[in-house]
């Protein structure tokens, strides 16, 4: 494993209010709770297909997305539900999405975490990874051409670094010095394939070869992730180009619900269990007197209500199955997302 930089979380403190830190925990708790609820619904046969979760990786998306402004644009990966929650996608719509209901973000057209709310500045992923690296690069290219102080962020995994689109996006972003942030979510396994069969050199070291900065961050620390993303965003919007953030973490569950993960040594999982990102954030907040039990209860109540509402929602009407293959009206670009970090509250462009 790569060296994990220390001190990221310490540096984050000066940019995070107590409310911000609670927001990070709340996003992670909601993500875990929603995914656990979805897994039960899957076992009850209410979630079709398979189910993919990000248990143990919640800090990667929560921390990174928290640093993004309303006008920034995100391409989010399947183990990054917290990013959707931070942008403003509601739990009801997420559970409806998992169950293929009409109220889901894709209205049943696509499954699980294959969604992005276009009205909240997000483009949903496709299964071919890391295709969205190029899409994010293209967004950043448009921002640069138009002279806008915005950036694009995308997440992808360790396995993605083996594909050509990783190279094309890294190279393109480096050549054009674009305001894009690449978050490499290194969770040690691409399905069953460990990283030592994926690459000979830690991919964060490749950033230098493409002409920009690569940083390794403890991916199980939401505040360290936030700080790395905040610094990367500052570089991006100041015209200093892209950043590759390697978030070192561990996939604690199988690739999907059908995968028993027998190929992962038990000791490896147990070792990472001690570094749970939610427990870590809870310990920090307990120290400053936050009512963790109260927070957990309110998150659970929100998920209970969302599940009830989603289960009551209708399935999509088969008569609509051919609708929307083509856009028939005007092309509407992506809208702005929610950006709860206090740094955006005052001047709208925290840099």
């Amino acid at each position, binding site marked *: 494993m790569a060296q994990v930089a220390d001190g990221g979380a310490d540096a984050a403190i000066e940019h995070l209010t107590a409310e911000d830190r609670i927001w990070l925990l709340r996003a992670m708790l909601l993500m875990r709770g929603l995914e656990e609820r979805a897994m039960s619904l899957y076992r009850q046969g209410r979630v079709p297909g398979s189910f993919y979760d990000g248990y143990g990786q919640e800090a990667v998306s929560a921390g990174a997305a928290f640093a993004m402004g309303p006008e920034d644009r995100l391409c989010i990966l399947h183990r990054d539900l917290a990013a959707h929650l931070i942008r403003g996608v509601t739990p009801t719509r997420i559970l409806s999405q998992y169950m293929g209901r009409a109220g889901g973000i894709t209205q049943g057209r696509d499954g699980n975490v294959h969604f992005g709310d276009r009205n909240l500045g997000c*483009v949903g992923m496709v299964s071919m990874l890391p295709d969205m690296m190029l899409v994010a690069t293209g967004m950043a290219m448009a921002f640069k051409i138009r002279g806008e102080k915005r950036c694009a962020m995308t997440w992808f995994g360790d396995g993605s670094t083996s594909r050509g689109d990783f190279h094309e996006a890294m190279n393109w972003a480096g050549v054009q010095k674009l305001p894009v942030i690449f978050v490499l979510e290194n969770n040690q396994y691409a399905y069953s394939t460990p990283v030592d069969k994926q690459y000979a050199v830690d991919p964060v070291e490749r950033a230098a070869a493409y002409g920009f900065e690569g940083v390794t961050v403890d991916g199980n620390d939401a505040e360290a992730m936030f700080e790395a993303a905040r610094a990367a965003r500052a570089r991006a919007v100041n015209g200093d180009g892209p950043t590759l953030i390697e978030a070192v973490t561990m996939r604690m569950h199988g690739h999907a619900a059908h995968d028993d993960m027998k190929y992962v040594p038990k000791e490896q999982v147990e070792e990472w269990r001690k570094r749970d990102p939610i427990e870590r954030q809870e310990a920090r907040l307990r120290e400053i007197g936050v009512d963790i039990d109260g927070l957990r209860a309110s998150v659970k109540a929100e998920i209970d209500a969302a599940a009830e509402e989603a289960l009551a929602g209708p399935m999509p009407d088969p008569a609509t199955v051919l609708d929307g293959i083509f856009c028939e009206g005007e092309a509407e670009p992506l809208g702005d997302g929610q950006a709860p970090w206090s740094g955006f509250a005052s001047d709208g462009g925290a840099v």
Partner: protein
Amino acid sequence: MPTLTYLQAISSALRDELRADDRVLLMGEDIGTFGGAFKVTDGFIDEFGPDRVMDTPLAESGIIGTAVGAAVVGMRPVCEMQFSDFISCGFDQLVNVAGKMHYRQGLAVPLVVRLPSGGGFSGGPFHSQNPEAWFMHSPGIKVVAPSTAADAKGLLHAAIHDPNPVCYMEHKHLYRRVKGEVPSGVFETPFTARVAQPGSDLVVIAYGAMVPVALEAVSDGLDGASVEVLDLRSLVPLDEEAILDSVERCSKVLIIDEANATCAAGAQVAALIAEKGFESLDGPVVRVATPDVPIPFSPPLEAAVLPGVDRVREACRELLAY
């Protein structure tokens, strides 16, 4: 009305769009300083600058993928594949990311991919293909293929204004061989078929470079038969009404593809006629297409596979005599 070559008509459309709309952005390999492998964008960089006439890295997946990103944040990218063959390297971004975006997420991807296609110049297996059927088979992508200078301009304007991904098949063999009067300024040619020559005994259905081949083939040697030529112009959407209308009037049908025969655009047209035009037919639906072979390099080999005037005329004769 000025007379332009097919290539000049394409350039004219791109120039007019760049002047009219700040959101329009050209991307491709060697299109800036060099002006493009076929000089479609010759001199553009001087007028519009390197940001809007962008020399990209040699990365077709990168071109399509970044264009998708630019499109969903409000740009109107027009990508040039140096040769249509190279779209194989950008296939995934076009088919999986761009083509499915609106259906999955309601997010429009206004993107044009210019695909210089076709053979006839000893380009060999990697510079001569007609890949339009790949994209006809991929939901969410429109496919157009002009055969005249006026349509080259009008269809390109319409493609750039369209809120969906559009594959614009520009035939390399027509670039400097086809000339015609082209209206000035911005105008749109609809994505519908056009009767290139009216007739009543037989209809030859074609698109792209096969339209001039068809027109020449039926111009003499058919004992005065009245032969219609229908130029499809658009493959997605396919103008079913115009096709069935021609079939009803002519009763005999010959369909030409320069593409490899299996599952080509013409196969789709033949299936449509079999299903919906059967009652109008007075003979078998006949196809002339390139056999399922990589396009060979050497002139006699290439000429042996690409549909030419003689082959089309012979097929017309046989069908008229049926």
